[in-house]
């Protein structure tokens, strides 16, 4: 790729300087030897080759379990006895503004129990996840900016509520590349269709398109439905190998007449990568290869299957895996919260717990940052019925960006730890508040990046995932 930096394409030098990673990382890569760094053998043409972050870090990969729609923290990880005590009474003082009108305090229908040595309190909805209490780093003082899905989803994923910015997975694959060139570096799984805000949740924004998340509809089970163009239905694998041998023989002759041009070599290698990807991807997505006890541990259903796929992807070197609960906004329970939250948690609790156990058993939890949460939480007050909404029922909760809970595990986080608190009723984060930008800054640190120096120059500015915000919450780090 003989281009000056001016053409805004991706020479390695440019990637490094743009990402502020500088000569240190570059020099180290040379020490390790170009050939060891990836499969193309040619520098600067495959932007997904593995790269080093700013500093050594425990976390190397991420699984983000996205409970889209907004799970209720006061029904899951943030017990508030005062809601019960004052049940049916209005919230003292002014009720903070959320999307819709809410009324009296509405106690949780779910029972909380203490778990582990840390005595973490978790509701019955996540009784299996709770068995990992001492590995969980629970942030009960999360807050975002507005009580609406769209901006909150974008904020959680891209650090900006309205404008087009790269998602965290794109940032990380840009910064770290990926360890397995035979699989997409960043995968977003969501069964049945897109979440709200669609593929913008895993967008590359102004980063090159190759850093965009690859969407996979895990409703499907066969590989041809899961990954585009991964399967050839017209020639056998053996014949395709012969076809490739011919292609490469012609390509080599073409290349020899043109001396050294890394672009030509890179494209030759990309065919070999593609050929291997066919078998490797098919294998990784085929959960039936797992032993029965593992399948049993995850349990039945699509959540179990996609969480198990997530582990298999991580195991095979995929950098960033996002696991969405389902199309639209399943956790958005404006009514019938008891029935709906129970149903949703039942679909995933066992499998999330199994994932944590499984990662541990494979020795992967140390290097894998697991994050669970929604785009916001829900109100401790009951949502009032409104024409056209919740059908006259008074048994749900509204969106709540003022305070909510997320948890992390593995990847160097402090296990068995609860950070921050919401107020007496769970409405607003009041103690050690953690904004979404702060979470991002902390996650980047766990992955080896200084969020203030991890930048990409675009439209005249050096952009960051945290824009001009973000504080690292060192308490969350082990």
């Amino acid at each position: 790729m003989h281009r000056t930096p001016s053409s805004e394409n991706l020479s390695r030098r440019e990637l490094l300087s743009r990402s502020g990673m500088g000569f240190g990382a570059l020099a180290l890569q040379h020490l390790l030897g170009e050939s060891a760094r990836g499969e193309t053998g040619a520098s600067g043409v495959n932007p997904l080759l593995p790269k080093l972050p700013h500093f050594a870090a425990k976390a190397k990969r991420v699984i983000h379990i996205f409970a889209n729609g907004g799970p209720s923290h006061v029904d899951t990880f943030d017990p508030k006895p005062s809601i019960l005590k004052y049940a049916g009474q209005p919230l003292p003082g002014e009720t903070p503004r959320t999307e819709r009108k809410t009324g009296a305090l509405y106690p949780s229908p779910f029972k909380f129990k203490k778990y582990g040595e840390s005595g973490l309190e978790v509701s019955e909805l996540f009784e299996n996840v709770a068995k990992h209490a001492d590995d969980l780093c629970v942030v009960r003082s999360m807050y975002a900016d507005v009580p609406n899905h769209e901006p909150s989803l974008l904020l959680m994923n891209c650090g900006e509520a309205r404008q087009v910015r790269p998602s965290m997975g794109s940032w990380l694959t840009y910064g770290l590349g990926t360890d397995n060139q035979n699989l997409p570096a960043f995968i977003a799984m969501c069964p049945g269709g897109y979440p709200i805000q669609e593929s913008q949740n895993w967008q590359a924004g102004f980063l090159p398109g190759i850093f965009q998340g690859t969407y996979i509809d895990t409703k499907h089970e066969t590989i041809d439905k899961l990954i585009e163009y991964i399967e050839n239905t017209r020639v056998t694998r053996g014949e395709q190998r012969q076809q490739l041998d011919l292609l490469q023989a012609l390509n080599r002759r073409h290349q020899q007449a043109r001396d050294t041009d890394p672009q030509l070599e890179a494209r030759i290698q990309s065919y070999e990568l593609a050929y291997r990807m066919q078998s490797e991807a098919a294998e990784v997505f085929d959960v039936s290869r797992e032993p029965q006890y593992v399948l049993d541990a995850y349990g039945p259903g699509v959540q179990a299957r996609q969480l198990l796929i997530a582990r298999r992807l991580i195991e095979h070197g995929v950098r960033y895996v996002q696991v969405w609960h389902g199309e639209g906004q399943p956790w958005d329970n404006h009514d019938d919260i008891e029935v709906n939250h129970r149903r949703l948690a039942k679909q995933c609790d066992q499998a999330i717990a199994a994932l944590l156990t499984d990662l541990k058993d494979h020795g992967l939890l140390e290097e894998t940052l697991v994050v669970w949460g929604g785009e916001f939480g829900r109100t401790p007050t009951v949502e009032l019925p409104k024409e056209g909404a919740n059908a006259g029922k008074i048994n749900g909760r509204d969106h709540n960006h003022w305070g909510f809970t997320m948890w992390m595990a593995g990847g160097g986080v402090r296990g068995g730890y609860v950070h921050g608190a919401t107020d007496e009723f769970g409405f607003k984060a009041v103690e050690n508040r953690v904004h979404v930008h702060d979470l991002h800054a902390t996650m980047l640190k766990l992955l080896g990046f200084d969020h203030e120096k991890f930048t990409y120059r675009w439209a005249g500015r050096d952009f960051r995932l945290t824009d001009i915000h973000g504080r690292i919450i060192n308490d969350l780090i082990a």
Partner: protein
Amino acid sequence: MTICSPSLAVLQRTLVIAFVAGSCTVVRAAEPPADSVEFYQQKVEPLLKKACYECHSHAAGEASGKLMVDSLTAMTDGGTRGTALLAGQPEASLILKAVSYSDPELQMPPDGQLPAEQIEILRSWIAAGAVAPKSDAPNPTEKKMSPEAIAASHWAYQPPRDYSQAFQGADAAAINAPARTIIDTIVQAKLATVGLQLSAPADRATLLRRLHYDLTGLPPSPEELESFSSDPRGDHELLEATVDRLLTSPHFGERWARYWMDVSRYADTKGYVFTEDRQYPEAYRYRDWLVDAFNSDMPYNEFVRKQLAADIDPTATEKDLPALGFLTLGRRFLNNKQDIIDDRLDVVSRGLMGMTLACARCHDHKYDPVSQADYYALYGVFLNTDEPGGDPFPHRLVDSKEDRKSHILLRGSPGNLGAEVPRRFVSFLAPQATPFDAPGSGRIQLAAKIVEPQNPLTARVMANRIWMRLMGTSLVESPSDFGTRCPAPAQQALLDQMALDLIRGGWSIKRLVRTITVSQVYQQRSLHREDAAQVDPTNALYWRANRRRRDFESLRDSLLSVTGQLDSAVYGKSEKITERPFPRRRTVYAYIDRQNLPNLFRSFDFASPDAHNPARPYTSVPQQSLFLLNSDFVAELATELGSSARRAAADPNAVNSAVNQLYRQVLGRLPSDDERQLMVEFVSTSNAAEQTSAPESLERWIYGYGSFDATAKTLANFQRLPKFTGGAWQGGDALPDPNLGWSTLNAAGGHPGNDANFAVTKRWIAPRNGKLRISGKLQHKQDAGDGVRATILVDGGNSIGQWTARNSEAKTNCELILIMAGQKIDFVTDCIADPNSDSFAWRIRLRYEDGGREEFEAERQFPQPPHVPLDRWQQLAQALLASNEFAFVD
């Protein structure tokens, strides 16, 4: 915001290491007293620096609310709310009030409250008398350069210099070719300064491919290549004639319109929406306008004027209204007005002038002489522009009737109104300019300021874009940011000369394209030269041409073109190129879904339609290879191409010539003996057994027909329906087919053939073992004839259900069955006795009733690709289409 040069990063890393090492042996020193200078230096200043300097310091060049907090004096002087600090009176000091979040109107820092202990540090420091070193005020000489000084010194803000005289006396001995154009003179002179010379001209075939790629995006035909190579005219005369011919091709406008669509972030949709229609149904008319503008060589100044103000521009007609798509076809941001205007300001400023105006939305530009007032002055232009909708172009604009005042929005926040600013141009480019007069939005005045010859940016930016497209690399580091962080290009003389030529040539784009393409510089070979690479490894000085991978559009268009499948009609509506039946139109007409752009586009480095796009990356990733190896689209093309070669090779003596012919058709030249031998070997070693076995097992649905025995309820002689029309499977192109009669199957249903030997059948093959539930509905809507009969068979034998319908419908639900992977379920429809009026619909649904609950639906999964195995010739054709020689332009 951080500036990150590599050396700085190294320095920073070193500091981090030093800090970490040091922290292990920290000895806790005694706290300095709160009334000491040390307390300020060790406790207060670092805190302020971290929490407040970003927006309130000389270092950041920011004084939000006119307040600085980087010195005691600055804090005492205060900002718009008055003094921020009263020594000894913490409770009366605004700064403490702000950090303690006691006033909901005044909470600092805005993105989260400081920890209590830090607030306490501030409190005790103020209480103890706010002691600070005497000389703590930042040195005023460290202040940023004034906007005027920057405007007067940065290269891109000065008028382009005319070099045509300066090179008259260039050292003729140092250059190796007579200069054909001023471009050659300048480039050769520059090369001579480092002891280099131009490479030799490329051969004719290479040049013709290059010219076709650059001017039309399509490959020349083998015949064109041959007659070009043997043309008796001299090289130069021939090339000039060819450039002139290609410039008049209607495909020139298509190629260059697509380039401009990167600049103007074209899409057929609005991006994310709630419930409103997300289409821009008439967006394609903007594209048609662009194609036309480039083909008719509309002068660039007029081109810009019409895209900004076709509704007001006196030279514009109604036909020009689609030009306004430049402004209106951006993302809609859920109809947030500020964001829509910001997007428009961005496409105008970066797209036309290489100016990053959007950086000044929340504060004055950090590097360039662009103030926040400039931003809101231009914001006012679009604030006073409305979209009326309706005919004749729904995405048009008009000036608003009322006069809406634009205010600076402090920190970009709509709730934080600052001073009113009149609508006017960026002040450093028009210091004495008067505001754009009301009435009117000022769009026409804005356009005039952008394209006036005195504007130092516009012509340079466009000249660079043209050069970049033709030469493969940009002259400047950032094609859409000519601001102060963009150093003068190594070839500034060249850029300036081209900018002047553009203006002096009546802003003719074709004229500049011609000047570049007839130059020696353009026509060089692209081969590596070790001597030159030592001196200029990135070819920044253009000692050779750049080899380029075809962009997505040209690659797809070329695939269609060499296989004889291209529909070369110019203009028209957008088509979804990833959906069956695959459109054969040029890629410039692809439907661009901004929100959910198909991965295929992204894999091939297509310009993101989210915002203005300065330049594309060129990567080689396996997803590109997978498309070429495995996609139905490429397989279809390879099938067509390979089949004709196979037919030509029917006579064993014709194999060599068939290979030659196939190779020539794809790559435009005959293969070498060595290459031909490889290919002949390949086509003659087919492995027939392997060919027929595997592919079928991968299929889920097969559409065919067979002999149905109504008494035994069995199906025999199942065969595929041979012809796929894109909408249906049947005997041939037309119905009835001489052999298969009316037999046809489509997504929803079909029509059985003339008797029991032509019972149309959808065959489903089980992907895995499990419990399967089959449900559905059979519909027949005519009263004539005897209706249709539907039967479901397992493996051609076991019937698990049978129904008939005549002007009626029947539910076709079955008992739960156990099925093994690979077992076939046949959905057979026959005409009973009379094939008259037998069109039917049969909705079929299969569902595994266990863990996965995976569903299969005949309708939704139709049309399936014709999974006909590729024979050896077709595989060869595909390999050639996938080759590097096809994908790269030397």
